[in-house]
């Protein structure tokens, strides 16, 4: 046994990953089932010289995170559905002002106060379109405790690289379960830091695309270059504008910096899809039930496979489009009334029959339920 193997809770792995990624600021508000992330951040951050603050509400937490990130610190907050709703206003601010930050949403049953201690995956669409207006966002979803660690690091890296808020969309099962984890040697972890303005730049303009990659270099408050940041539509200087061309250019760049880099951002795992006639698409803890069902059905000789999404948004359109024509059915298994299934259906473009396996009663979808659904769909074909 490796000396580093230990039993770790999902929420704990999130904090470990965040600190490994360079998180030095956390602002949050207590909410089940994410609270352990705040508690552990409060304990661990000062030990590495970082800062923790429990704010007066979820809105303030998101504001404080953005403020801290503007001074150059990597910052994170964690919440669950009700708090995620409240954070949306300032998530939009971070999207438009391109301030890197990580938002963890440990999903629980909803809507409203819903089922505070029970799992759900009902915030899939809110994670994509929760704040108003066209905006870029990246959403990651871990299935294993070890993957919570890895994807938290990745969330910081993507957020820093693309100057975009990145959401780690967990569910209660993966957040609260404890699982064997072997943490990697910190020196082997790839860390990405935001691009800083080249010192040779005179009259720095905070939103100018100096490098032509759609990502402006980011100065920090306190570094000596005064600049302005506003939640209004702004030109390359950072000052407000209502000019149609400026507006169009800004929104286009915001979206393109993500959609031009899908190969770098989108990540998923294909399991037994090569000869599959039925492919199940899933994510988070639900994917583990699907994986078990795939194993069991393969043993019985059924041609079944799965795609496990590690990024939910931007959606892995290619994963669907690349499926061979041997595939007859797609099933989207998710703990909600049917959210991602519509996006999968759109991606399928009529090539495959698409149906949903949905559960929204506060219980994880079981392998038996997956098997029953597959058999139902196969019987229909």
């Amino acid at each position, binding site marked *: *046994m490796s000396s580093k*193997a*230990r*039993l770790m809770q999902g929420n704990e792995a999130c904090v470990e990953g965040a600190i490994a990624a360079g998180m030095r600021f956390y602002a949050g508000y207590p909410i089940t089932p994410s609270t352990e992330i705040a508690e552990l951040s409060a304990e661990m951050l000062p030990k590495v010289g970082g800062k923790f603050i429990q704010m007066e509400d979820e809105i303030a937490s998101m504001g404080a995170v953005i403020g801290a990130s503007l001074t150059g610190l990597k910052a994170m907050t964690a919440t669950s559905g009700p708090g995620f709703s409240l954070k949306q206003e300032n998530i939009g601010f971070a999207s438009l002002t391109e301030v890197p930050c990580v938002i963890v949403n440990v999903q629980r049953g909803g809507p409203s106060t819903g089922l*505070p*201690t029970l799992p759900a995956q009902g915030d899939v669409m809110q994670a994509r379109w929760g704040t108003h207006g066209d905006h870029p966002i990246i959403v990651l979803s871990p299935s294993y405790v070890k993957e919570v660690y890895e994807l938290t690091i990745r969330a910081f890296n993507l957020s820093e690289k693309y100057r975009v808020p990145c959401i780690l969309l967990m569910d209660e*099962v993966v957040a*609260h*379960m*404890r*699982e*064997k984890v072997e943490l990697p040697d910190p020196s082997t972890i790839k860390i990405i830091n935001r691009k800083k303005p080249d010192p040779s730049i005179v009259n720095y303009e905070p939103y100018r695309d100096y490098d032509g990659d759609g990502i402006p270099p980011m100065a920090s408050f306190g570094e000596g270059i005064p600049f302005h940041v506003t939640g209004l539509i702004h030109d390359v200087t950072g000052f407000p504008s209502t000019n149609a061309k400026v507006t169009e250019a800004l929104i286009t760049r915001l979206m393109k910096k993500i959609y031009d880099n899908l190969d770098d951002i989108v990540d998923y795992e294909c399991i037994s899809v090569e000869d599959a006639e039925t492919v199940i698409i899933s994510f988070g*803890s639900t994917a*583990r*039930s699907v*994986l*078990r069902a795939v*194993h069991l059905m393969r043993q019985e000789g059924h041609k079944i496979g799965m795609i496990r999404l590690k990024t939910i948004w931007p959606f892995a359109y290619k994963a669907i489009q690349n499926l061979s024509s041997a595939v007859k059915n797609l099933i989207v298994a998710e703990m909600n009334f049917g959210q991602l299934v519509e996006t999968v259906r759109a991606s399928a473009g009529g090539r495959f029959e698409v149906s949903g396996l949905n559960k929204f009663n506060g219980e*994880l979808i*079981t*392998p*038996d339920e997956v098997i029953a659904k597959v058999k139902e769909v196969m019987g229909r074909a």
Partner: protein
Amino acid sequence: MGERMEIRLSGSGGQGLILAGIILAEAAILDGKNAVQSQSYGPEARGGASRAEVIISESSIDYPKVTKPDILLALTEEALMKYKDNLKPDGVIIIDSSIKKPELPVKIISLPIIETAQNRTGKVIVANIVALGALTTATKIVSKESTEKAVMDRVPKGTEELNKKALYSGFELGESL
């Protein structure tokens, strides 16, 4: 031992079953196996039915929840009644001797867990550790050495001796079968 062993520890809130589950999972990891521990809880911090679940496997663990336990521990009648029916056919139930032994188609082991905690350590609060010791030796699901190390790593400073005594009493209970 089978490929995937499912263990459910049940009783009332405050009996320390979640801690027992965590220790059991850690002992399995010390044995070089994979383990997943999860729990269900209501809004109340104390009282009510409580359960911790542990899955131990030589290979990686996909579905993380217990469906048909191989082992059920029940420290209260309420917990036994709630969870007794869906064990695997070759499963085993370990109950506290204060519970009336039910008629069930699986093996039932009745052990004086709570009484032993009271008589041997003077503290009922360590019944969870006594139970863990008994479960370890009765089922051999994890090694005694790993359980002991896991217990010592987890229990609060200053309570090591108390917990060690509880654990050894539990080992004896399981070995007496």
